[in-house]
């Protein structure tokens, strides 16, 4: 089915307008949804922290705490030096080591180590 049988400039422009609008609408709804999710999450974590007896001023800081900033600087440092070998190394090894399948799970890896 052709939504708009494009025969004229007007129809083309109209199609383009629908197109860009829908892109905006789709992403805008995602924005709104995740802003709501965000509020709920922050609300929940505030509640938890209040229960734990902290002051609310401190809570705001957690979203940009020292560790995070250090991490970001480190990341940027790594990015410009492109020497992040050690880290990804460790990650890769960890990922590969899980020789584990749906039909044949952890226990098999275990079995394998036994009889070798």
């Amino acid at each position: 089915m052709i939504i708009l049988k494009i025969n004229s400039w007007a129809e083309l422009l109209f199609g383009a307008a629908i197109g860009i609008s829908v892109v905006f609408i789709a992403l805008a709804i995602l924005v709104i949804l995740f802003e709501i999710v965000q509020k709920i999450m922050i609300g929940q974590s505030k509640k938890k922290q209040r229960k734990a007896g902290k002051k609310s001023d401190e809570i705001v800081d957690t979203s940009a705490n020292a560790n995070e900033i250090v991490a970001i600087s480190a990341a940027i440092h790594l990015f410009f030096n492109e020497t992040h070998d050690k880290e990804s190394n460790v990650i890769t090894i960890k990922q590969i080591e899980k020789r584990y399948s749906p039909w044949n799970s952890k226990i098999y890896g275990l079995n394998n180590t036994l009889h070798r």
Partner: protein
Amino acid sequence: MRDLKYKIGLLLILIGLFMPISMFAQDGGISGSLILDSLQKFWNNTSFANFEYKYLVMIFVGLVFIYLGIAKNWEPLLLVPIGFGILVGNVPFTEGYKIGIYEPGSVLSILYSGVISGWYPPLIFLGIGAMTDFSTLIANPKLLLLGAAAQVGIFATFIGAYAIGFTPEQCGAIGIIGGADGPTAIFLSSRLAPELMGAIAVAAYSYMALVPVIQPPVMKLLTNKKERVIRMKPPRQVSRFEKIAFPIIGLLLTTFISPSAMPLLGMLFFGNLLKESGVTERLAETARFALINTITILLGLTVGASTQADRFLTVDSLLIFGLGAASFVVATASGVLFAKIMNLFLKEGNKINPLIGSAGVSAVPDSARVSQEVGLHYDKTNHLLMHAMAPNVAGVIGSAVAAGILLSMLS
């Protein structure tokens, strides 16, 4: 609030975009009604217009699968792909745009063709073979019979399905759910009853994930206190020669008896030879990692997507789910009972703990783990895991043989 502000801003921009164009449109001879018409048509094309509540039901099912996989860690490598596939398959769409899995030429239908023509499951068996250690089975061959006994579930369900009114071919495909083996179920239903594949696959994988819930009551019901604490001798060490001979002899013997099981058993034993030969580890490594993972991704996604609500939400599907549950119970019971029968003929000291009989259903390795846990419940120091692995892998062979026989009887 700032939030509100930029949302209003957004709206203004959208209106700003439409304004000049719609004006121009009128100048260019498009009537207002055409604009409305076109918007209507666009709307008709979205999932909102094609929406029906049955899609919501399936989306909910998909979310449950994903939840169980992630939060409960139940067979996540199966439930997460299948669950997401259910979401993908149940976003409503207008036909004719090569979107749906049942529309020829769509990407999903291309990826699904490996399921339909039946070559995904054998490649998964290749990887399973390259992962599986048959040592405990070789050390104590008689436990193979427990893997045979649990296949009674298949044939019982086959009979039950016929009683309910399915055709013989459909009965075969439904029966195989009792084999508790996903790839075998998909392979057989692709050959015997493609129209039921989605329901059969989802039922098989659901109950495989539910093995820790389904099996323990049956096992406890059919055993007495004394039987549950039987201790078994640790398996002997198996030589390299035996490990290499097993896949070769296994292949020749089982496929001579049931040649139709070749695609599954040929690949299973091939993978195992690659693993055990000691000189083809490079190939075994790819079979058990890159290859099986790729096929698992494609198989899970497309099997999930094949549950498109309009084809899936039928009375047949419900019946299949019921039969599937029954078949798991029967299979578990057969395994346990057969172990008890074998004990009648075994002398003291060689007796089998019937709790490992249930592992014969396959559902590797969850049902072996269930044997271990139930066993520990009655004797904190009696570890049945190693012993339960034997019927467990035997169950894989057993249900593949059963699938071969059903194929040659019914196709």
